[in-house]
């Protein structure tokens, strides 16, 4: 387990990369130095009426400069607040949090849906194997350039404007993509489809789950998901997504 840090980070760069989607580079003291793909950070609001941190996946790191990148969608008041900041502004963050994706040499299929795409970039950069990346968008696409550099890249858009018309599963089928291991992050219906696909094809599949969080470090038990077996820590069939996850073997959790 890597150490966690709580620090004031400085925004190096912030830009809107698609409608309502922002990319933000943060200069950290320590957090960026030891990140595994699939881990996330808690970003705290400066606005005093918002008490809970926002969990956001690490999209990319620049370890030399101890900087990290997050890509987020404006979903509510907290992310709206973040989107208004400019370089030089500061944000308190905690991280790196969670377990992250296990790295292997197997032929990999990385599946990202919507705002689940960003963590796939750091993963693709760290994986040293044959990589196929499928990204599903509603309409407007983002992070395409970066992803293309790191593997064979397939796109699905709901409106068919780019790539396969439909969702990530449609793109996988249309392109007859095969793999030994799947890494997936995206909306729950997508993850369910991925799990079914993985079972059907007997592929090892790792999924990154989401739940509302308070502490972000496993203390408050807000963010649990049901697990197939009794969890060692909780002593019940519940796993903490922030601490034991967010990445789980698809078969060990219910979602």
């Amino acid at each position, binding site marked *: 387990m890597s150490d966690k840090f709580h620090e004031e980070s400085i925004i190096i760069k912030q830009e809107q990369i698609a409608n309502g989607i922002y990319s933000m580079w943060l200069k950290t003291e320590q957090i960026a130095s030891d990140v595994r793909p699939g881990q996330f950070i808690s970003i705290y609001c400066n606005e005093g009426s918002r008490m809970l941190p926002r969990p956001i996946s690490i999209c990319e790191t620049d370890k030399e400069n101890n900087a990290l990148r997050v890509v987020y969608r404006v979903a509510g008041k907290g992310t709206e607040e973040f989107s208004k900041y400019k370089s030089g502004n500061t944000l308190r963050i905690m991280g790196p949090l969670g377990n992250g994706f296990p790295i292997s040499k197997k032929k990999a299929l990385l599946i990202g849906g919507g705002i689940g795409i960003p963590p796939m970039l750091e993963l693709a950069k760290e994986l040293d194997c044959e990589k196929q990346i499928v990204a599903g968008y509603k309409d407007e696409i983002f992070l395409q350039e970066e992803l293309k550099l790191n593997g064979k890249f397939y796109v699905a858009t709901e409106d068919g404007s780019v790539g396969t018309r439909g969702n990530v599963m449609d793109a996988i089928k249309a392109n007859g993509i095969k793999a030994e291991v799947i890494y997936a992050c995206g909306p729950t219906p997508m993850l369910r489809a991925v799990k079914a696909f993985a079972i059907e094809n007997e592929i090892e599949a790792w999924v990154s789950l989401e739940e509302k969080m308070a502490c972000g470090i496993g203390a*408050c038990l807000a963010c649990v998901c049901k697990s197939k077996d009794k969890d060692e820590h909780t002593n019940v069939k519940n796993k903490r997504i922030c601490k034991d996850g967010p990445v789980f073997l698809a078969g060990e959790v219910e979602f």
Partner: protein
Amino acid sequence: MNMKVCLAGIELNNPVMTASGTFGSGEEYSEFVDLSKLGAVVTKGVANIPWSGNETPRIAETCGGMINAIGLQNPGIDVFIKRDLPFLKKYDTKIIVNVCGKTTQDYCEVVERLANEPVDMLEINISCPNVKEGGIAFGQNPCSVEAITKEVKKYAKQPIIMKLSPNVTDITETAKAAEAGGADVLSLINTLTGMKIDIHRRSFALANKTGGLSGPAVKPVAVRMVYQVAQAVKLPIIGMGGIVSAEDAIEFILAGASAVSVGTANFTNPTATLDVIEGIKAYMNRYQVANIQELIGAVK
């Protein structure tokens, strides 16, 4: 400068502790907080057997606070004694175990199990609004507060803290009932029952429909209740509800609390407890308060 406070014969290095349920059993936060610096660690509620808690979503943010309906998920007293107590014993802090149950018998079982364990005090949670049985059902009626306090005291070797619910017409009545039942210390407030509706999905924000409101939003209610209880009973009080800063903590102390707990603020700032302790010191320095005792209940 003396920051030591005494609760029912137990001396704390300082008056700042954690609020049950917001700090686990200390392990996770020990990456950020040297637990030896805290007056006490109050653990998440523990029951006689493991509880799985409520469905998710279990929390939702509100203006200046949050609502939670964790539903007292806990690994049960066996695991707690085997794993969490030894961990906490490594630190130079007091250990307060928060106890929950569905029946009086459940509470007593946990209290009895802990009687010979290295635990400094027990906090009896009769005020959790998020469980169907037990919890708040005990805490809203003075007669049952008195009865359960008496029962628990029969099995207790450590001082007993009764944790009161703010969801009552007159908190001095339940406070007096706990005093009559033999409580050693009172702690308040637990959460105020609240609800949030997601207007876009047209459904409740929490799977449990209602949840307990905590955080700075509730502080004025909490300070008022601590003040009222301090006027009504002789027992020492642990004050909580929305403490984020030393200023907040001092408000509770001036209102009559001998110690304070930091809860929701841990989620906003993992070192909130330490910041509160440092801030109290700074305040005492600034106003030349030699002993924190001078502040307890100083506003009347």
